[in-house]
């Protein structure tokens, strides 16, 4: 489903955030990316979702080599990958419901269908009652859930989440991770980053540890994380 081969990413500043990364995520798998701050987790996830382009090597998603795609094709591909941003990327002048509806508006979904799907997504993350609320009135955990609702509203086959439990307390973290596990159970491929060991324990799944832009250690496919 997702395949990195000898991938390097150098930002325009000249900094090489990923140096030589190879790994593979099979369909329906849950893979957790770990590493200290600055190790390149966000960079790796953005490359997998077609938000950034690799400088070297190849990123293949769903059989498509992303470096061969033009800007428009890459944008269209992004519609089919749900992304939960580390910094949420919510629009604070729009209601919760409108934020979740944004991907559907872009895709040109009919408005009755949009309404149905938005409510289903909000329901799934437990925010149905807050459809009309502005994001600023939501708690950190709720904003995170809203971001997840927007990522799943298009029913993507791949869900990428960048530290979705970032600054949350243990209880909120737990319920968010449960959400991802529930998506994983229904067959969604999940690629998630965290720097928090307790999350790792709860999620299980396969682990990909980064350090300084290189893969420090990786569980082989099908191998469960001990503990």
């Amino acid at each position, binding site marked *: 489903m997702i395949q990195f081969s000898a991938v390097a990413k150098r930002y325009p500043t000249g900094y090489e955030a990923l140096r030589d990364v190879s790994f593979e995520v099979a369909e329906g798998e849950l893979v957790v990316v770990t590493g200290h701050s600055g190790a390149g987790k966000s960079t790796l996830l953005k490359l997998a979702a077609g938000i950034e382009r690799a400088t070297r090597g190849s990123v293949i998603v769903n059989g498509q080599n992303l470096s061969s795609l033009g800007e428009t094709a890459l944008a*269209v591909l992004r519609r089919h990958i749900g992304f939960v941003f580390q910094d949420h990327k919510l629009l604070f002048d729009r209601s919760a419901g409108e934020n979740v509806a944004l991907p559907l508006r872009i895709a040109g979904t009919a408005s009755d269908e949009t309404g149905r799907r938005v409510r289903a997504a909000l329901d799934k993350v437990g925010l149905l009652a807050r459809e009309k609320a502005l994001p600023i009135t939501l708690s950190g955990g709720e904003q995170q859930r809203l971001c997840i609702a*927007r990522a799943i509203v298009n029913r993507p086959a791949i869900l990428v989440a960048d530290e979705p439990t970032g600054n949350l307390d243990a209880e909120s973290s737990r319920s968010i991770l449960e959400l991802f596990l529930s998506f994983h159970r229904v067959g969604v491929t999940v690629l998630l980053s965290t720097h928090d060991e307790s999350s790792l324990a709860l999620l299980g799944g396969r682990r990909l540890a980064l350090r300084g832009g290189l893969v420090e250690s990786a569980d082989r496919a099908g191998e469960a994380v001990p503990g």
Partner: protein
Amino acid sequence: MNAWIRTHRHALADALRRLAAQPGASLVAVFVIAIAVAIPVLGVALVRSVDAAVGGLDTDPHVNVFLTLDATEDDAKRVEAALRAHPQSAAVKFVPRAKALEELKATTHLAELLANLERNPLPHAFTVRTRTADPAQLAAVRTAWLQLPRVEQVSAEFEWAEKLGRWTRFAGRALAGGALLLALAVLFIVGHLIRLQVVTRREEIEVSQLIGATAGDVRRPFLYHGALQGLAAGGCALALAAGLIVWLNAELSALTSSYAYEFKIVFLDSSTLLAVLLGTALLGWVGAWISVSRELRRFAGRS
């Protein structure tokens, strides 16, 4: 209804919402563009009206030969033969004095005055198409024909009509140049207004792009915004120009009613009106396109 149509409908609704959200600013913008468009529209109406008036005048090289008042038909026949024999004459048309009077009555407001005359004040005349328009050669022709018996006057009056024709052609060109400059000004105005919109919506654009909006998706509402602004400005410009023309015509008719010739500014025909509306909408569209594309490149450069 398919997704493509829906994205366009969304974009149109979005543009209308943006325009309605700041009615004051939108109105000012539309009015500023309208003034820039109204100027050439008015110019076109004016030049076309003058052109139509000049079109009624004979601008081909010709000379009018007037006989004396006491010249008879026989005199006229002899003069006609001489005129036809001249190497510079291409065609000779005889205008009997009775017919000249009728024409004068029909084409001017002098009918009443003329009816009161005891006798026809007009002589027999000829209109001779010449093979040359060269002033020196025409002068020679004139001198030669003045020598003919019973010829009182030879005039080459087409010259002023021709000059007027040249002036209207010149004015037409000056107008085309001016219109081009003003079209550029409209592009800049729309581009600037759209740029402000893009900048205030930068966050929304960036988030949209992150979750799968193509450059086309991002551009679409702004293109509608620009086109709608252009269209509204075009309509406003036409209304402005029409109002001005009505007012000018009122003045003109007071001015020219005492003359034989009546001049009036005619407003643009329907196909030109349509062209103005489509043209301003297109200018808005293009201005928005340029502006959004530039801003998107700047965003891309920064991230």
